[in-house]
């Protein structure tokens, strides 16, 4: 297929793509084929650029990225803290997340209830979240109430009460949340999978909210200490989007943050490779009587800053990133054994992984597993099908423009750059690479990534059903009704608990 030449695009717009300029210029190329009567759109002439944030540096060292937006009378604020659950000490998994949870449990004269009441009365909502690499405290509020709400926001950031009484309750609720987490088979698959993929001790191996046992052992003193260690102006970036005059905003911010001081927190050392995934692993978590089996398969991915990350993003869009992706087309629309099958990327500071997953009806467990492997083998052959690159690039471009329409979407684009101490507009390079990628780039990355023999397979479902399915796959090298597999084999299954610990032979926890 041929691309319509676009004004500034390099000639590698090989299969009908968008173009880039110094700023992210977005213009599409014509569609490859014309079906009778179907009005397939021509080239897009639209130019959309990622806005340049205005950078304010406050006197205490806090950096503020201001992104102008005036389409709704709302203000969105997000304080990005450059520490995440990866900074939890061993045995204290969940510590940072809990200290985040405690932040809105009272400040100054306001206890937890009074604070929630004030915020809601202002039409404000608070969002505390802890990721592996970084954490964020988000505020969304009606513009007319911004000054009052921002006052509360800074109280929460700088002067949380961390009272004994609120802590006792918060911890009890957290422990129950962790128990409830174990009821959801997809959560179980994630906890078990992350733990085994990264391996004990790796900063990414534990869930952000910790384990039952580790959370039981966390004290309020440790919460206070963890908060003090990471909440420093040099370890944070404040993102704001709304309709502001920068100088006036700076004055207001200086006032609120004048008392906030401290040295930057040291970021944890870069960890090495997550471990030995050179061989296939297969783990099973029993959920007796389950109507479906959750299949969750891990592969190595790419780090956030990897120059290959954009190509992997495109390849994975083709593999499992849209409705017509290979995985969904096969498992849902052809085999009709699931409501959906997908594949996503976690591209983080230290390491990245790829997860392909689906919930398939129990009776089709063998077919589900074998079709995942067939699709891995297909991808590893490295040949893209007609229209796939164009689809992936158009989809990525479209999703980017869609995220520009909301303030939350705008902040999302800059969050990781802020967290990883990168240039605010570093994503332009990423999207530019996607815009100019050719099939060869995708083929190369696919051959490196989709290696079926290096997968970690997590299955959550009825153990008897799963054992039977695995036996069928071992015996026949494929599943009944499934496509052919090349040299297929499966390792011995290991049985794990819902928190990712090996089950003893008698079925009890070790």
């Amino acid at each position, binding site marked *: 297929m041929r691309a319509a030449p676009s004004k500034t695009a390099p000639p590698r717009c090989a299969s009908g793509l968008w173009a880039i300029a110094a700023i992210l210029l977005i213009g599409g190329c014509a569609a490859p084929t014309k079906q009778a009567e179907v*009005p397939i759109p021509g080239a897009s002439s639209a130019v959309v650029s990622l806005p340049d944030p205005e950078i304010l540096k406050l006197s205490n060292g806090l950096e503020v990225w201001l992104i102008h937006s005036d389409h709704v009378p709302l203000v969105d604020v997000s304080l990005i803290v450059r520490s995440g659950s990866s900074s939890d000490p061993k045995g204290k998994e969940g510590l940072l997340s809990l200290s985040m949870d405690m932040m809105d449990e009272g400040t100054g004269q306001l206890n937890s209830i009074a604070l929630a009441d004030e915020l809601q009365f202002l039409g404000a909502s608070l969002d505390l979240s802890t990721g592996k690499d970084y954490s964020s405290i988000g505020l969304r509020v009606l513009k007319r109430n911004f000054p009052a709400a921002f006052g509360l926001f800074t109280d929460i950031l700088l002067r949380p009460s961390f009272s004994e009484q609120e802590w006792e309750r918060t911890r009890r609720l957290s422990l129950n949340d962790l128990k409830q987490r174990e009821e*959801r088979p997809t959560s179980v698959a994630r906890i078990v999978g992350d733990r085994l993929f990264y391996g004990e001790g790796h900063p990414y191996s534990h869930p952000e909210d910790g384990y039952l046992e580790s959370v039981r052992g966390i004290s309020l003193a440790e919460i206070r200490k963890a908060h003090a260690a990471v909440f420093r102006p040099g370890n944070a970036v404040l993102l704001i989007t709304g309709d502001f005059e920068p100088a006036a905003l700076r004055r207001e911010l200086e006032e609120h943050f004048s008392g906030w001081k401290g040295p930057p927190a040291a970021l944890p050392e870069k960890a090495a490779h997550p471990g030995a995934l050179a061989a296939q692993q297969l783990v099973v978590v029993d959920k007796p009587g389950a109507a479906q089996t959750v299949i969750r398969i891990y592969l190595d991915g790419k780090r956030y800053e990897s120059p290959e990350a954009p190509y992997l993003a495109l390849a994975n869009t083709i593999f499992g990133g849209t409705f017509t992706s290979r995985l969904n087309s096969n498992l849902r629309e052809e085999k009709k054994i699931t409501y959906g099958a997908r594949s996503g990327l976690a591209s983080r500071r230290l390491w990245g992984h790829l997860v392909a997953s689906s919930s398939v009806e129990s009776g089709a467990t063998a077919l589900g597993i074998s079709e995942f492997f067939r699709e891995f083998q297909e991808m590893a052959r490295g040949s893209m099908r007609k229209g796939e690159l164009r689809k992936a690039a158009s989809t990525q471009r479209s999703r980017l423009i869609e995220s520009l329409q909301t303030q939350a979407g705008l902040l999302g684009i800059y969050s990781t750059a802020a967290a990883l101490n990168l240039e605010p507009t570093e994503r332009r390079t990423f999207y530019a690479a996607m815009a100019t990628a050719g099939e060869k780039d995708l083929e190369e990355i696919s051959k490196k990534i989709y290696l079926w023999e290096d997968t970690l397979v997590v299955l959550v479902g009825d153990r008897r059903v799963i054992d039977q399915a695995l036996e069928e796959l071992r015996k026949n090298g494929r599943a009944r009704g499934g496509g052919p597999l090349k040299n297929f084999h499966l390792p011995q299954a290991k049985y794990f608990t819902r928190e990712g610990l090996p089950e003893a032979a008698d079925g009890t926890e070790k």
Partner: protein
Amino acid sequence: MPGHLKTNRLAIAALAALAVALPGSFAASQEIAFEHYTLPNGLTVILHEDHRLPRVAVNLWYYVGSKDEPKGRSGFAHLFEHLMFMGTEKVPIGQFDTIMEGAGGSNNATTSSDRTNYFESGPRELLELFLFLEADRMTGLSQAMTLQKLNTQRGVVRNERRQSYENRPYGKLWLEIPALIFPPGHPYHHPVIGSHEDLENASVSDVVGFFRQFYFPGNASLAIAGDFKPAEAKALVEKYFGSIPARPAIKRKKPPPPKTDGVLRKTLTDVVELPLACFVWHSPSFYLEGDADMDILANALAGGKSSRLYKRLVYDRKLAQNVSAWQSSSLLGSEFVIQVFALPGQDTKENLKRLGVIEKEVDAIIAEIQEGGASGREIGRARNSMESSFWTDLESIEEKADLLNRYLFHFGNPGAIGRDLARYSKITPATTATWAKRILDPQARLILHILPEEKEGKQ
């Protein structure tokens, strides 16, 4: 529970859309300026320009939902929604999504008890493609239907049922409630997702019949929002939809309003950690008198930590893990739901005892709010949170297109935003007290418990 989706990635957005409620203290009506007109074949068209980004959204409502399903065909309206993506003679199977995604567009659809909506969005250049594809399936879906297509989506939908209800903690609750609260023969007697048995029984002739009965221009409305020129959009609508033949309007009988006599109790078990108590009342239909009061009451009772139930049950008495309450509004009658996740006891006996204590506390709180109504501060608090989430919806052309169709459906006018907002500005403590008394009758409700299954060998 919300409607059902072709795919589940938008499930959260759908939930949010159901929960939307509009406060009275701001001039949002300026924000969705529109024009609308009706084609000779009965299709209503609504246009809203928003040139912020080079994108366009198309949103098509068909006035058919699970309430319109024939006996023995529960789940059919939603299954049919899935079939709408399975191709026509002009656009063979698989091509609908392939063509759209190839050009950067994306789509989905949802089915509720009352209506089915189909929507797509993407680069503005795709407007013609979107209109062509929607008109094409409105014209020719049934001619190209086959048993194989039906079987495919039957399998997908049955897996949607497994994933969203059967293999999800507490999921069976939503399968049980409709039959408990609506009498046999009432259009809401069954859940939107339907039963496996009825889904298995659906035939190609059912598909053809349903298409003929409900899928025609006069039973639909089309909203377009985004970066387009109205004259061009109108010409495209005329080009693709203008020649679709009109059909006579559907005559519908309105069932008598549902009513609960006495207290109905039911206990289920599930593989869960926390016992659950769920209280359900019949309440005023979508946008009818009292509907907005119930929204405000839900917020006062369980919206956030400072709400009455949260404060009493979770914070003060330490009986519960979490509470929620919502007015689930529908055309032929709504449900007001209070849900409490209790802290777990040692065994079933203890769990039952705790649920009993919770029930007494819930009743005491309800009695208080019936007496004094929601306070001025509670009403203000609810309005401000609603205003915030309303503006959030208005950030998106997809949401605006859906909202215009919703107002047309319920008020007969896409511009009813002002009327909607006015409902909330009229609310006072006294009106909420009146509605709390009228609706939240402790002697006329459904009380459901879900208890954790006793574990073997648990020490």
